[in-house]
């Protein structure tokens, strides 16, 4: 990234967070609550015990994968608003493959289900990628439309052909044991999915540091015309970037399904795909920055549940913190862009 480097990103994130916490305190105080107690509860719920930390990391897992998806596309100059839809189709594909009666060795089942999720996400990302690359159709419009298609398509499938009629829940059949991802007992939802996500972050970092494709994606993102003139296949690169981005988002859905819900629940995502945009921007688009910001967002999510339970403060206060952090990240991005234009 062309920003002032990792250290300055970190400094900026810290000050944004401090500002956000101060704002939240004001809001709580104005609403007649006890800011210190509430925020202490938030912190305790986020990182006050080993279980709290594991819960935070579990919440961070889908955000990390989807955040990587958004950041990868954005480095190629493509705004992937469609992570949510890619995540949903990825989750459904993983649930479908995971529930199959399969005669292959059981240890292959989980990787196959993960792969199915990644493929479905990639296919969902490929459509806007190809349209953008060869036809110039704006990816924002197409990804938004693809979101609606994914939401309604999965809704239809899980209510119709793929519905498990033996339960009241609107869900697919549970995935078989061999397809489930290992997770820690005790309800923290911490699972092998977190390590999958970390591996993905390492993979994205490697992609941009060492591979020709990563170089091409960055070149197209930062200087499309120069890249084209130098012979970089711009359309192919855009399609590839969107495929990879979709694959990561699809993986996020697959991990959620295989590790947490163990089946595809209708509308299981509380908007991971949209939150991941903020995660990506806050993380400064670098893989490790995105890792940190996803942990921050995961912690806020875990902490806010605890805060609501132990104080009378509603969990939406965590939303205030998130919002301020996002605005700060946006301001920073704008300032950077203006500097570059000058």
């Amino acid at each position, binding site marked *: 990234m*062309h920003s002032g480097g990792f250290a300055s990103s970190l400094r900026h994130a810290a000050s944004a967070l401090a500002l956000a916490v101060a704002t939240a305190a004001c809001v709580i105080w104005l609403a007649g609550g006890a800011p210190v107690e509430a925020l202490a509860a938030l912190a305790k719920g986020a990182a006050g015990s080993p279980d709290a930390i594991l819960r935070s990391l579990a919440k961070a897992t889908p955000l990390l994968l989807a955040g990587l998806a958004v950041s990868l596309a954005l480095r190629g100059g493509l705004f992937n608003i469609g992570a949510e839809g890619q995540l949903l189709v990825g989750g459904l594909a993983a649930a479908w493959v995971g529930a199959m009666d399969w005669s292959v060795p059981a240890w292959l089942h989980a990787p196959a289900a993960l792969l199915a999720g990644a493929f479905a996400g990639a296919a969902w990302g490929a459509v806007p990628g190809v349209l953008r690359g060869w036809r110039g159709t704006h990816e924002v419009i197409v990804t938004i439309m693809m979101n609606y298609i994914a939401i309604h398509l999965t809704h239809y499938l899980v209510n119709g052909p793929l519905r498990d009629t033996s339960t009241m829940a609107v869900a697919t059949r549970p995935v078989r044991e061999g397809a489930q991802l290992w997770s820690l007992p005790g309800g923290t939802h911490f699972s092998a999915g977190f390590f999958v996500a970390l591996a993905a972050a390492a993979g994205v970092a490697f992609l941009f*540091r*060492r*591979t*020709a*494709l990563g*170089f*091409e994606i*960055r*070149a197209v993102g*930062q*200087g499309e*015309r*120069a*890249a*084209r*003139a*130098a*012979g*970089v*296949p711009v359309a192919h690169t855009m399609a590839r970037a969107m495929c990879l981005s979709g694959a990561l988002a699809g993986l996020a859905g697959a991990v959620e399904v295989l590790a947490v819900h163990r089946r595809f629940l209708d509308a299981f995502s509380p908007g991971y795909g949209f939150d991941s945009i903020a995660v990506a921007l806050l993380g400064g688009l670098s893989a490790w920055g995105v890792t940190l910001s996803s942990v921050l967002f995961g912690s806020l999510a875990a902490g806010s549940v605890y805060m609501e339970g132990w104080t009378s403060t509603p969990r939406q206060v965590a939303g205030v913190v998130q919002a301020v952090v996002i605005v700060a990240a946006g301001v920073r991005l704008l300032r950077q862009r203006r500097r*570059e234009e000058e």
Partner: protein
Amino acid sequence: MTDRAPLAVQMKGIVVQYPGGVLANNGASLAVASGTLHAIVGENGAGKTTLMHVLYGRQPPDSGRIRVEGVEVRIPSPAAAMRLGIGMVSQHTTVVPGLTVIENIMLGAEPHVAGVLRRREAVERAQSIGDRLGIALPWTASSETLSLAERQKTELIKALYRGARILILDEPTAALAPQEADALFEVLRGLTAAGGSVLLVTHKLREVLEHAQRVTVMREGRTVAERAVGETYADDILALMVGQRAATGVAPLAPAPAAESSAQPPWERGPASESGRFTGDRSSARPMPLLECRQLSVRPAERGPGLRDCTLEVIPGEILGVAGVDGNGQLELVEAVVGLRSPSAGDVLLDGESITGKSVAWRRRRGIAYIPSDRQTDGLVLDFTVEENLLLGWQRDERFGGGWMIDRGVTRAAAAEAVRAYGIRADSGGAPAYALSGGNQQKVVIARALAGAPRLIAAMQPTRGLDVSSTRRVHEALRDATRRGAGVLLVSLDLDELLGVADRIAVLFGGRVAGVLDRADADPKKVGWLMLGGQE
């Protein structure tokens, strides 16, 4: 003369330091008499443009004093400059593409009654200014349809529309045919005769000698001399411009204020252009052409005629210059040759084999290199480092890993080598491209194009905006390539450049080849005539 005539502009002790610490102006001064055309010359980075930006209110100086028409002023913004009667026509025109010509002209000074625009009034006023100067523009057309020269005229009228009495022009003739440039100077002469003052920033000494009354020479942020043009010689000015380096390789120019217009500037006459020229006898068998365009037609990129039925060839070892007024098919020709644009009819051949339809990358592997005209958008990824820019397009080449992986050790070494070989002034290969000066940016583009010993180099205005020594280095690099047997397709809007370095000159007009002249037969009048649509 300067003692008695009121000074239109007086600047003293101007200091401008950019955030990076660069001293762009370091005590620069300027005195311009009313009713004169005053030239400002100097190499790239001498601080000419910065000084003009100070005068136009775009760049607040750190210190220094400015007087306009005898009154001490501060100029915090272009709006303030306009109120003082100062107008500027920039190097990069600032025409807003979405607006019509007249909307651009009246932008910010719209005649209106109770908020309702009076467009017709604006057109009439602009037209009367245009009539006086002999400029006609399609007032109500979208400004996107304008050529660069027309945009410039739009800006000129825009400045006068606002009542400018002091006009700054930054490299105004860089994109004009000789006749167009002469017409512009005719306009400017009319302005000065009416008491206006013109500040002309230029790299072309001939313009200074032919049209200016006085000249200020800048070097390294300072004003080193001010002379009356009638009392000075070109080689004096050149020596003042380059300072200590004058001794190294710049041949003296004959004192010729009224020289024949065909006289070549000295920097385009060096030994490099004499040797290695294609000397084959045209009547004997010509070598097999390296590149051929056969009845090539290309739809227009944005506007203009596109390319129509163009047949050309480049043989090994020659520089084929392509002359023409901007927007007559040059871009379409070059982009069709390098593979960025597919022709609607006809063929492009390399070594007699059709390569029409092949990708840019494929052609590049086969030895076609491209030097685009706009180095900042088409040549470089500005946020990339020098090393990364040198790698661009070669990222899957065998030298750097040959496929999926890039060996950063090798790319770093290659970048260090290129930085050394081409004398790129950068702290290291890790410096971002935007931090380099224009000349050094161009060196990066050229280093990348020439890596891998290309056989055909398609260069589009490779010296635009470069100073004398950078220009010479570019020409030497191209000439060196021809000595190796490469062919060069050199598009330039600067006819002097083509007359200086090309072996043959093809003239494009209206997308067609209006004529191909050997250099021996090419004089500026003849080429200019063809450029403007005359018959051979």
